[in-house]
């Protein structure tokens, strides 16, 4: 992306395996060595790896948009959160009587809203003259009030059903795995709306529009209690196949016998086994995505995308529909973000909308992509795993370092303030890493070939 392009990266074809090997060593150290830097528990190492794999998928989604097409999506958190809605809607049991009380009215209200918008758009295109604005506005106002008249009582009726435990529509009681493609579809739908309006204009309009949609999706999840209980959170979302629950494992005689044969504590054994299964599941998804992304990147389609990215004017002179291709790739990338969001909520087992922080879920992902190497899928995966590891560990190392620095100060307000502030240092560290990579190694750890 930069005009500053240094020569080929050192190491040639061994560069990627070497860097991934170094990353593996980091995780092995975390699992085996216990000192100030590493915890020495496999439980911790696998825990970091699980979320690291989701981060890698997020980074892959962003890389599709930025690396292939140069689109700056500043609303990752929104698409991620929307994907996270899917496990709630798909895997949770339906709330008794909620659909009869208000579910149909809400669907009908949405239908009214959509019909209103369609009519307004059609009128806007068909009519001419001075009356057009007033007629379109009248249709919109009328549509809005009929929507609210249907929507508000329905919401009240749903939220009145056992508000302490449910008070929302609930889901379809389907297997959690089904929610993952559903998350992709939800995110892709939102991406279509944003892309349709903001693409084809100036490049930074997309970043600002995505920043907005990110905020709004999170606000909707926080406030629409009928949908996913808002800030009351949805708990107990079933785990995806084939991951069992630790307590079930501990009551399974066959498992207990195997643990006894291995000489492992069944408590530790069950948590490690569960984490391993998650890791295997996520690696499987990541492998499929990587396979598809690599195929796409090396296909004529991928070459066309890079041609558009490097010179839009030339590409459109060759007859390529730049805005259309951009819309396509924006939707594709966002659907990957939605998949990661659904995976994350299936992993957490709960939906907590207040935890969607843009710094953590939008801009940290960007650091991963830039550090890993924009335009290179393997780079995005490497960046996702590495930066997630550093982010988690920096949260632990920061206070330790501050403690070390503050020992000379003696007890007092200043020392206390520094120790309180230490966890925030990792934001500064991430910013500095991002700036250093952008400046001195703009092509990242694994540059695009």
């Amino acid at each position, binding site marked *: 992306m930069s005009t500053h392009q240094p020569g080929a990266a050192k190491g040639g074809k061994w560069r990627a395996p070497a860097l991934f090997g170094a990353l593996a060593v980091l995780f092995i150290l975390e699992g085996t060595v216990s000192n100030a830097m590493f915890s020495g528990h496999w439980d911790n190492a696998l825990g970091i790896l699980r979320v690291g794999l989701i981060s890698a998928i997020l980074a892959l989604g962003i890389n599709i948009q930025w690396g292939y097409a140069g689109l700056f999506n500043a609303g990752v958190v929104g698409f991620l959160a929307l994907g996270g809605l899917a496990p709630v809607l798909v895997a949770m049991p339906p709330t008794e009587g909620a659909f009869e009380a208000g579910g149909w009215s809400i669907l009908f209200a949405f239908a009214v809203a959509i019909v209103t918008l369609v009519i307004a758009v059609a009128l806007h295109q068909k009519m001419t003259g001075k009356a057009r604005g007033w007629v379109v506005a009248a249709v919109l106002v009328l549509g809005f009030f009929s929507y609210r008249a249907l929507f508000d009582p329905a919401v009240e009726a749903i939220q009145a059903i056992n508000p302490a435990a449910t008070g929302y529509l609930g889901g379809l009681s389907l297997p959690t795995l089904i929610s993952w493609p559903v998350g992709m579809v939800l995110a892709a739908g939102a991406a279509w709306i944003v892309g349709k309006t903001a693409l084809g204009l*100036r490049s930074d309009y997309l970043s600002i529009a995505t920043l*907005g949609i990110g905020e709004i999706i999170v606000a909707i999840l926080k406030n629409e209690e009928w949908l996913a209980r808002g800030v009351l959170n949805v708990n107990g979302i079933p785990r995806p196949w084939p991951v069992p629950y630790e307590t079930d494992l501990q009551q399974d005689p066959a498992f207990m016998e195997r643990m006894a044969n291995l000489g492992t504590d069944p408590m530790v054994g069950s948590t490690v086994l569960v984490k391993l299964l998650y890791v295997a599941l996520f690696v499987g998804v990541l492998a499929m995505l990587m396979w598809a992304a690599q195929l796409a990147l090396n296909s004529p389609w991928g070459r066309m995308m890079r041609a558009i990215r490097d010179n839009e004017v030339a590409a459109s002179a060759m007859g390529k529909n730049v805005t259309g291709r951009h819309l396509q790739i924006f939707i594709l990338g966002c659907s990957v973000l939605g998949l990661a969001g659904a995976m994350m909520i299936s992993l957490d087992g709960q939906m907590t909308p207040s935890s969607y922080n843009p710094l953590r879920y939008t801009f940290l992902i960007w650091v991963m992509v830039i550090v890993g190497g924009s335009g290179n899928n393997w780079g995005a995966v490497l960046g996702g795993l590495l930066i997630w590891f550093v982010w988690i560990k920096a949260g632990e190392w920061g206070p330790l370092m501050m403690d070390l620095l503050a020992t000379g100060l003696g007890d007092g307000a200043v020392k206390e303030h520094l120790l309180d502030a230490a966890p925030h240092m990792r934001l500064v560290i991430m910013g500095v890493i991002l*700036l250093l990579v952008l400046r001195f190694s703009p092509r990242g750890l694994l540059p695009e070939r």
Partner: protein
Amino acid sequence: MDLLNAFIAVLNYVIVPATAYGAQLALGALGVTLIYGILRFSNFAHGDTMAFGTGLTILVTWGLQAMGISFGPLPTALLALPFGIALTALFVLGTDRVVYRYYRKVRAAPVYITMVSVGVMFVMNGLTRVLIGVDEIRFADGERFLISAREFKTITGLAEPLAIRSTQAITLVTAGLVVWALFWFLAKTRTGKSMRAYSDNEDLALLSGIDPNKVVMVTWIIAAALATIAGTLYGLDKSFKAFNYFQLLLPIFAAAIVGGLGNPLGAIAGGFVIAYSEVAVTYAWKKVAMYLVPGWEPEGLLQLLSTEYKFAVSFAILIIVLLFKPTGLFKGKSV
């Protein structure tokens, strides 16, 4: 009488707060639009520059208060403001020297510099948290009200109160002075003229001997001053919380785009358009409707959107402008 009461209610709950908020947004949007016009990128770090500047101003305010210095009926923070501006400007000039200057030299693409500003955003966000923490801070002191609700009721004998907080009045007066000074500077001084020339046509400006380094430096200083003033006024009026300032980025960008990116007059208009729509759409109109239509008691609150969705309003306006008038209400730049 009912008509008057309805008018006072609108004034009290919509016009007065929205005007103060609009002035704060306008100052923020002016900073964004200046940087866009002259440095040619969307500065994602602007919200955090506001937070950083306000944090410094609060620290100086506490220092002044500890020394027993106060500003009479006005908030002490106004005395601290020049120090906050100076420190923020120094920091921002430092980031330009260390970070942005290189990308100007290699003429990097605007979207790439925007990415760089995300890095600066991280650093400033972290520093603000280290400096002053993440908690909500109220730092307004001095006289609380210009007109208090009770005074107004006893003087006029109306049922509806009208309260004007002194911070709202201070916001308007300060914003007015700052905008006047800025436009005078841009229109009348040599440096201001060269800034406008540089914004219009960089190559022509360089050809006629304008020193680009000076233009860039002055732009950063003005942007830092605008950000610190806007942030401090917002903090005085509401409260200071670092994360809220990050979230202000959206309405500020929306204001700048609605007005036309790169156009200072547009930024001011955009700020007020966003602020009035935001407050009007999230205000519960029930009381006003009851005054206007005697004998009618509406069932709901007559609130178009709940206040949690105020950002949706700026977003909707942004989308409408992008669809129908992508260069903004006033003609903006198209880079």
